[in-house]
Every structure is written in C-alpha cells, then in structure tokens.
C-alpha cells in the first residue's frame, strides 16, 4: 500500500512542470503540449480522489476532460496551422505583431 498523497504530489509536480513548460518553451506547439501535460496532471488528481472517495464521478470527470482535450487539440492545432500559413513560424517570440 502506498499513500494516496504520493499520487497527488506526483500530480502537483507534473502540473508545475506543465506550467514551467508553458513559460519557457518557445515553440507554440510545445507550449500547447505543456498545457496538455497540465491537463493530464489534473486528471491524475481526479482519479486519485475518485479512488479515495469511492466515487465514480471523478473518473467520469477525467473522461470528459479527455473529450475536451481532444476537441481542444483539434482546434488548437488548426489555429497553429493557420498561424504557420500566415507567418511561417511557430516561434512564440516572433508571433508578436501586437506588442503588449
């Protein structure tokens, strides 16, 4: 038996790594991957909690998150393709026609 908190900490670590990836990665597509990593980390939390509460709801949530992630991926990649067509680059720092 291992404590459920290990799973949760793993999830937190993965989530943080995802956030770090979001900040340091310089290619739009890897930035997007970092977001997927974050979602996966959250899913792990959900499953752990579902296990802990003996409730199926957590698992159902994960299932829906997957669906949403799939939909998001379709749209996100479509946008990435569009931007590549318009700008011929995926570098975050070069996609800056509008400066903050």
């Amino acid at each position, binding site marked *: 038996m291992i404590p459920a908190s290990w799973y949760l900490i793993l999830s*937190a670590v993965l989530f*943080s790594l995802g956030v770090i990836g979001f900040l340091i990665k310089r290619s739009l597509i890897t930035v997007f991957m970092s977001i997927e*990593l974050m979602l996966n980390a959250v*899913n792990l939390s959900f499953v752990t909690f579902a296990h802990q509460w003996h409730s199926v709801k957590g698992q159902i949530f994960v299932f829906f998150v997957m669906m949403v992630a799939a*939909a998001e991926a*379709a749209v996100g*990649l479509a946008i990435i393709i569009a931007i590549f067509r318009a700008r011929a680059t995926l570098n975050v720092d070069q996609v800056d026609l509008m400066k903050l």
Partner: protein
Amino acid sequence: MHLILFIIFAGFCLAGAINLLLQTHPINSALSLIVVMSSLAVLYLLLGAEFLAIAQIIVYAGAVMVLFTFVVMLLNVGEEEKTHGSKAAKIIGFPAIVAAFSVLTTVILAIQNKLGGVKLSDGVTPMTELSTVLFRDMLLPFELTSVLILVAILGAVALARKEGHR
C-alpha cells in the same frame, strides 16, 4: 509490487515531463508526452480506473498526440530557436510556480493522513457503475459534449482549410 510499479511509472512520468521541457525538437517533446501519458495510464490502472487507463491510451496517446505529431510533421517544424523569452514572465512566473507548488505540496502533506492509501487489491471500478453515472446522472454533460465536438470540428475546418475553394 504496487510500490515498485508506482515508482517505475511515476519515474517514467517525471522523466517524460522533464524531457518534454528539455528537448528542443517538438517531435521529441511530443514523444516524451506520449511516454507521460502512457505511464499515467498505468497509474490509473493501479488506482483501479481500468476504463480510464485504456481511454487515456486511445484518446490521448492514440488520437490527440497523433494529431500533434501529425501537425509537427505536416508543418515540418524545426528545432526551437533559442530566443530570449519574456523576462517578466520568468521573473514573476518562476517564483509564483515554486510558491504555488510548495503550497500545494504542503497542503497535500498536511492532509496526508486523511487521504488514506491505495492498494492493488482495492478492486477495479466496474464498467456498469461507470456507465450508470455517465449515461444517467451525467446525461446532460454527455450530450453537451456533442455540441462541443461539433464546435471543434466546425472551427478546425474553418481555420485550417485553405481559402479559395469551398
């Protein structure tokens, strides 16, 4: 047994995630992410979520990430250029992440005893229970997903399609 499996696959997860950050070529990052996702699937199995484990493989590793690699290949995205990123993001971002992470970890460790443990013998969530909740209690979100996917398809077509021919 459980401990060994957990350590192995958690290790894979972490290694994959870190590798995702370190790799400069998108395709390598994508493959690292696939490793993370597949290892997560195993962890789900350990937690008794059999259906989710396989759904994770089918949906994430098998569909979403294929899409990613597909796009990387289609656009022939090269190595990431090492440009200086936004300084502000780093200066504010990293301490924030570290702080948030430590807070989360403290919280989790603080409630460790409440949470209990995970055993291999805990059993697997039966599919029937899963489907009861999914198709009865969660009927509305389930139906709603169809709208979501419809929107996504519409959008993907509208954005990715080259103009000039309808």
